[in-house]
């Protein structure tokens, strides 16, 4: 197949060439007729040349039309207008020549008249064919199968009619009449396809009306001029041609119909444009669902879309935060005082819910058709609902009463739904992001806290020590530590901050500071606890306390001195008795009494340890833990475990306790922090 470019390059010159030949042949024939010298040209040649001329024009413009597919509607009409203008100018020139020559011999010369007629024929044909191909696009603006088929019957019929030229049919011939009526009916049928008109904006419609009116004027002008030629001396007559006549009538009918339809459509254009704008707004709101937008952007989009969708005279958007406090975030044509007045008058006006199938009644807005407020007579209130909670209310106001029709109510309800979804989405995203950040921070806290517990416990030939500790949350409030004061003196602590989580962890780190600094000074257990109480009492909140036990081990004297500040009683396995005991000496939690009365409640306990004795320090996370059936572990079970395993080394005892403990807890992880420290004396 030939390329489009090649077709254009062939058909254009071919049209010109066939026209030149037609002109030459007709002039020769006519010249021969006047001089009664037969030209010897077969009578079939002129109509054949005319047919070729028409056909190549059709081909040329059909393919040229394809090239300009993406033109907008008014530009298309503008092209028709320009082509018409050129044809008109040429025609006017022809008339002008006639007038200029007047009674001059040349003006009366049939040869010259024939020449001018041919010239006019050419430009008018160009106009008709190009307009025809352009109108084809308008007719087929929104295609259906039937429409396309009908159009092709029309178009191919026309091509066939070009061939009829061979037969030199006279006007009013029966075949001419039949085919003309056929084309007329098709033209009428096709001319009602004017869907493109709906897509014109108001301004474009005015332009189109003007252009179409001019096209009709051109046609009238061309017809007048063509019929003004003396037909008896013409070798060809364009008006007698079925093809040309059909194009004339089709273009005229279609232009006229378009003109009338656009004219009658003018008043409703604004409605159509409004609908289009609504569609665009909905699309914009839906896009916000996918994109990460902040809430105020969504509020703005929702607010202004709604205001323009219902032509509100005034409006405001009020948001409700988590504490239920209302705040006006957007307003138009209203002052704060007016808003308060309007809300008051709304309370006393009759309202009914907006009808909408999309949302449940309790989430739908309300409409007041006759607001009792002087400036505005009708109002719509629309809530934005996220997770079944109203987060904002949009108020739309109109000066007239009953100013919102059903259509408007529907569209803004849709807007509200879209906006709600967008906001919910945006909140979910923000939540996820902040949750992630929170997790990261907790992880850091966990790392920091891990560093607070000793990684390596002090070692001494006199005893073995082993420990385990686990927080219920990311961070916990259990603390244990051992500090070597001198060659034979060790300070040991176990503590439990009330509560758990970050605040407990914070107090735990304070306690570590106190332990590290106070242990260096040669203090007894009681003094240590008194100092710790006064230091911690200043920073603990009034419902928090810390329980602790503080031990001083003297390996030289094989003695332990300790005091208990409200902490779980120390469990001590005495090898000699092969039994474990709880030391329930008097004590009081740190922070319980924040004055110098505290010291009255602390008792010091002292004992001599022997080889094989085991001291177990623990927190209440162990003894108060519960198994799957809700039973508490209790003190007796712990004691039994220690008695069973006391013959092992410290590490093994600790491991056995840890294993048995986790076995006891079963499926549910312990909900408190838990710690065990085992010291076995050699």
């Amino acid at each position, binding site marked *: 197949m030939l390329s489009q470019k090649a077709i254009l390059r062939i058909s254009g010159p071919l049209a010109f060439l066939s026209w030149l030949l037609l002109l030459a042949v007709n002039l020769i024939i006519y010249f021969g007729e006047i001089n009664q010298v037969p030209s010897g040209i077969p009578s079939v040649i002129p109509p054949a040349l005319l047919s070729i001329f028409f056909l190549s024009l059709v081909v040329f413009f059909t393919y040229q039309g394809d090239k300009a597919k993406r033109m907008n509607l008014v530009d298309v009409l503008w092209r028709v207008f320009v082509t018409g203008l050129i044809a008109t100018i040429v025609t006017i020139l022809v008339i002008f020549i006639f007038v200029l020559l007047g009674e001059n011999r040349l003006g009366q010369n049939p040869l010259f008249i024939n020449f001018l007629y041919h010239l006019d024929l050419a430009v008018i044909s160009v106009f008709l064919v190009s307009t025809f191909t352009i109108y084809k696009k308008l007719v087929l603006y929104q295609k259906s199968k039937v429409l396309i088929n009908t159009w092709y019957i029309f178009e191919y019929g026309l091509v066939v009619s070009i061939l009829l030229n061979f037969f030199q049919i006279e006007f009013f011939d029966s075949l001419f009449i039949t085919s003309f009526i056929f084309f007329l009916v098709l033209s009428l049928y096709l001319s009602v396809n004017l869907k493109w008109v709906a897509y014109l904006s108001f301004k474009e419609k005015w332009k189109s009306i003007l252009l179409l009116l001019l096209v009709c004027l051109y046609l009238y002008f061309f017809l007048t001029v063509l019929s003004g030629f003396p037909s008896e001396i013409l070798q060809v007559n364009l008006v007698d041609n079925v093809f040309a006549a059909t194009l004339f009538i089709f273009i005229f009918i279609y232009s006229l119909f378009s003109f009338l339809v656009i004219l009658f459509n003018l008043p409703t254009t604004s409605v159509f444009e409004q609908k289009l704008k609504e569609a665009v707004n909905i699309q914009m709101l839906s896009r916000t669902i996918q994109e990460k937008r902040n809430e105020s952007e969504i509020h703005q989009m929702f607010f202004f879309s709604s205001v323009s969708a219902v032509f509100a005279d005034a409006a405001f958007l009020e948001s409700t935060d988590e504490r239920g406090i209302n705040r006006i975030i957007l307003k138009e044509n209203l002052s704060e005082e007016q808003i308060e007045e309007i809300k008051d008058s709304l309370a006393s006006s009759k309202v009914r819910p907006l009808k909408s199938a999309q949302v449940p009644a309790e989430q739908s807005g309300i409409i007041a058709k006759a607001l009792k407020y002087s400036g505005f007579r009708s109002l719509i209130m629309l809530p934005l609902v996220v997770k079944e909670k109203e987060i904002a209310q949009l108020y739309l106001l109109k000066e007239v009463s009953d100013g919102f029709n059903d259509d408007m109510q529907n569209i803004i309800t849709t807007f509200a739904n879209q906006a709600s979804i967008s906001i919910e989405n945006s909140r979910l995203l923000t939540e996820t992001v902040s949750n992630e950040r929170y997790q990261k921070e907790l992880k850091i806290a966990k790392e920091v806290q891990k560093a607070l517990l000793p990684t390596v416990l002090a070692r001494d030939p006199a005893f073995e020590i082993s420990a385990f500790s686990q927080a219920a949350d990311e961070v916990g409030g259990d603390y244990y530590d051992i500090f070597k004061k001198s060659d034979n003196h060790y300070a040991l602590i176990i503590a439990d901050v*009330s509560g758990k989580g970050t605040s407990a962890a914070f107090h735990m780190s304070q306690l570590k500071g106190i332990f590290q600094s106070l242990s260096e000074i040669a203090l007894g257990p009681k003094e240590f606890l008194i100092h710790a109480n006064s230091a911690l009492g200043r920073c603990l909140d009034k*419902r928090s*306390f810390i*329980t602790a036990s503080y031990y001083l081990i003297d390996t030289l004297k094989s003695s332990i001195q300790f005091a208990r500040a*409200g902490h*779980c009683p120390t469990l001590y396995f005495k090898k000699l008795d092969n039994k474990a005991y709880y030391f329930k000496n*008097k004590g009081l*939690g740190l922070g*319980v*009494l924040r004055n110098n009365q505290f010291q009255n409640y602390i008792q010091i306990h002292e004992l001599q340890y022997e080889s094989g004795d085991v001291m177990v320090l623990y927190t209440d996370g162990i003894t108060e833990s519960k198994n799957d059936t809700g039973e508490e572990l209790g003190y007796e079970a712990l004691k039994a475990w220690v008695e069973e395993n006391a013959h092992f080394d410290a590490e093994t005892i600790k491991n056995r306790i840890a294993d048995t403990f986790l076995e006891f807890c079963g499926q549910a992880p312990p909900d408190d922090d838990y710690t065990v420290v085992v010291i076995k004396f050699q």
Partner: protein
Amino acid sequence: MIEIEKELEKDRIIIRIIGEVDASSSIRLDQELSEAIENNNKKILVDCEKLEYISSAGLGVFMSYIQVIEKKEVKFVLYNLSDKVQNVFEILGLDQLLPISSTKEEALQIVNEG
């Protein structure tokens, strides 16, 4: 979950704690105690017969009123504690600061004396 019943008996108020006092339910206990003290009740008895469990947060609530009670000269007694709950009070040392009695009669004696 806890339930708290209050009963005014002559010049004294009896606060009955039913259930478990943990971190979340301790807020409720705090409200009730604070209300009883604000209303200038000078004799407050806390019935712990049906108190099944008390966490450190619950102990913290009682602890936070020790100095207020002293200052306002309120007679405050806990009674009918289960062994387990009493043990928890004792370990922390609260029994030294808040009178605990085993029966209501004993508790009444404490609040009525002096």
